[in-house]
């Protein structure tokens, strides 16, 4: 019965193809904007999630920070050593006093040159422990992570970002490459994929989007490079001594992350005379970014609502005209035995069908629009089944809301007068 009403509605709509299309246009654009906006919003949401996941939602990250007010006493004293940052003692204290922190991992960074024949590229050499890979969800695309034996035996092995190989213009088997870091060769045992997208929060890990990173065993770095490092900064050589550049603390329960971060702050506050460290909680970043996202979530339905209101009024207008135009048909159907309900249903089905056709076209247009967004902007829209379902639901609802009045008007006609209408 309903199926036949839909077929009948389609036939009626097809009798006036252009008019139906123009009528549905409002819905088409309304739904297209809904789909495009929901997809863009979903894309942004996932991007934020991915970005935060890169830092680990269970992590508290402590970074060494060069104290801002540090003044070199005298340039003549060439052997001055700048000493700051996190220490092995900090690490031990965090591990010993905070039960909520299940894991605390040391990181040491060395800036050095990678040599590829005559070319050289400056890279960040990270000394890390094996669990660091787990905590930060680093999965090699090729080869393996660093393991405990690498550290214990102080092996000269490394895991590199794919970008490093690209810079090296190395086309052979990556796992056969001996990478020259400074004056020493390290065997590549694993390759990490490059970053999928930009992430402003990556700086919290001490990283940037260039992805020129080389991971080596923590013990190897300490052993071979010592704890002092000379760098050439703004025209002068600077000698600094930093024991640990980063400590990655992991909390078992996401709910305890904030309090664990306060505990870490308290410990470091006691142990450090200066602010030469910074504590960052990735999950708090997520929350503040999600807040920004929420603004978008409010604007979206408002815009979509206006678009659909306009589309719905267009449908209402045409359906009212159609009802008047078909007065005699309505009279005939009533004389033959159609009840109020039959007539209401017929016109309602016709309006909803029209709205759903508009919805389908709108979804297609929205998907197309999202693809264009993806191509020409750095947005990454994600079209979900949910978004399409919601869009179709909204168009159906628009059809019902704006179809009910014309349908009732059709049904309320006096059959005798409708039959006489010409």
């Amino acid at each position, binding site marked *: *019965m309903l199926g*036949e009403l839909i077929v009948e509605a389609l*036939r*009626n709509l097809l*009798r006036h193809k252009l008019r139906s299309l123009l009528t549905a246009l409002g819905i088409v654009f309304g739904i297209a904007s809904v789909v495009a906006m929901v997809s863009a919003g979903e894309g942004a949401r996932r991007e934020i999630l991915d970005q935060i996941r890169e830092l680990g939602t269970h992590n508290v990250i402590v970074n060494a920070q060069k104290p801002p007010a540090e003044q070199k006493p005298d340039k003549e004293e060439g052997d001055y050593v700048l000493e700051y940052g996190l220490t092995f003692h900090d690490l031990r204290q965090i591990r010993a006093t905070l039960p909520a922190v299940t894991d605390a991992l040391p990181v040491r960074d060395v800036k050095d040159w990678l040599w590829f024949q005559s070319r050289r590229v400056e890279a960040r050499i990270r000394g890390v422990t094996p669990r660091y890979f787990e905590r930060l969800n680093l999965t090699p695309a090729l080869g393996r992570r660093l393991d405990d034996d690498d550290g214990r035996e102080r092996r000269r092995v490394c895991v590199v970002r794919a970008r490093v190989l690209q810079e090296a213009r190395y086309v052979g088997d990556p796992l056969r490459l001996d990478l020259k870091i400074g004056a020493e060769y390290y065997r590549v045992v694993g390759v990490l994929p490059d970053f999928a997208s930009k992430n402003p929060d990556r700086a919290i890990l001490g990283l940037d989007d260039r992805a020129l990173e080389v991971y080596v065993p923590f013990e190897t770095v300490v052993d071979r490079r010592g704890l002092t490092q000379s760098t050439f900064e703004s025209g002068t050589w600077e000698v600094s001594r930093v024991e640990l550049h980063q400590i990655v603390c992991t909390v078992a329960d996401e709910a305890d992350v904030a309090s664990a971060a306060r505990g870490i702050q308290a410990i470091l506050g006691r142990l450090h005379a200066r602010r030469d460290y910074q504590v960052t909680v990735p999950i708090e970043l997520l929350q503040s970014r999600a807040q920004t996202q929420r603004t978008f979530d409010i604007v979206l339905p408002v815009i979509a609502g206006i678009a659909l209101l306009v589309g719905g009024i267009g449908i209402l207008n045409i359906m009212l005209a159609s009802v008047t135009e078909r007065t*005699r*048909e309505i*009279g*005939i*159907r*009533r*004389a*033959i*035995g*159609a*009840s*109020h*309900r*039959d007539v209401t249903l017929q016109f309602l089905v016709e309006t909803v069908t029209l709205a759903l056709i508009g919805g389908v076209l709108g979804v297609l247009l929205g998907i197309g629009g999202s693809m264009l967004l993806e191509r020409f902007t750095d947005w990454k829209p994600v079209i979900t089944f949910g978004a399409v379902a919601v869009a179709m639901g909204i168009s159906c609802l628009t059809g019902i809301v704006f179809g009910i009045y014309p349908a009732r008007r059709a049904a309320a006609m006096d*059959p*005798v007068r409708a*039959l006489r209408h010409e």
Partner: protein
Amino acid sequence: MTAPASAVVELRAVDKTYGTPQNPLPVLRALDLRVATGEFVAVVGASGSGKSTLLNIVGCLDRPTAGHYLLVGEDVSRLDDVRLSHVRRTRIGFVFQSFHLVPHLTVEENVELPLFYNRIGRRERRARSAQILDRVGLGHRRTHMPNQLSGGECQRTAVARALVNRPSLLLADEPTGNLDSVTTREIMRLFTELHGAGCTIVMITHDLGVADVAGRRIRMRDGRIEHDDGSAAPAAAEGSCSAN
């Protein structure tokens, strides 16, 4: 005794008033009418005398302002829309002067409409419309559109549509008013055959020749029955207008 109860139509003191309460416009006044099963009644009278209004009430398209209407023994004068629609599609078949076919539906789809509203499935609808279209001689026009038909064919389609539900009562409002004399005779032959098969018919006409075909003539004037031949003996005791 079933004889008195076998009246298909029984109107008792029916009034129909249009206009406003301040300015009432009476169209039917205290009208009594009884049509027995199997009768063929022709209603004649001047234009504006209330014939169509009477027929619309008899056809349950309209309700009397006052009085009672019993259709096959059931009082339908105060039924709500859903019930009245149900009565229309099970008991009544309508034929109009200007055919009133739905222009964008084919002949058979027009004929099937009353069956559709009776929630009868597609296949049975198709079978019954085919049968009845054969009966009125339009078997070869099933998939034509109304605008491809002659006036006579249109009216035969309308008759087929009126009969497809096997109604108790066939109502026709000037069915030959738009037809030439040849097709008028065709349609009247069809009506006569239906009457012969036991169908109860009430027909409005201006054409006295047409009215002569009916067994009983009623003349209306100013909303009243001015003259009534009186009930002739019913042709048969058949209860409905079947297609055979």
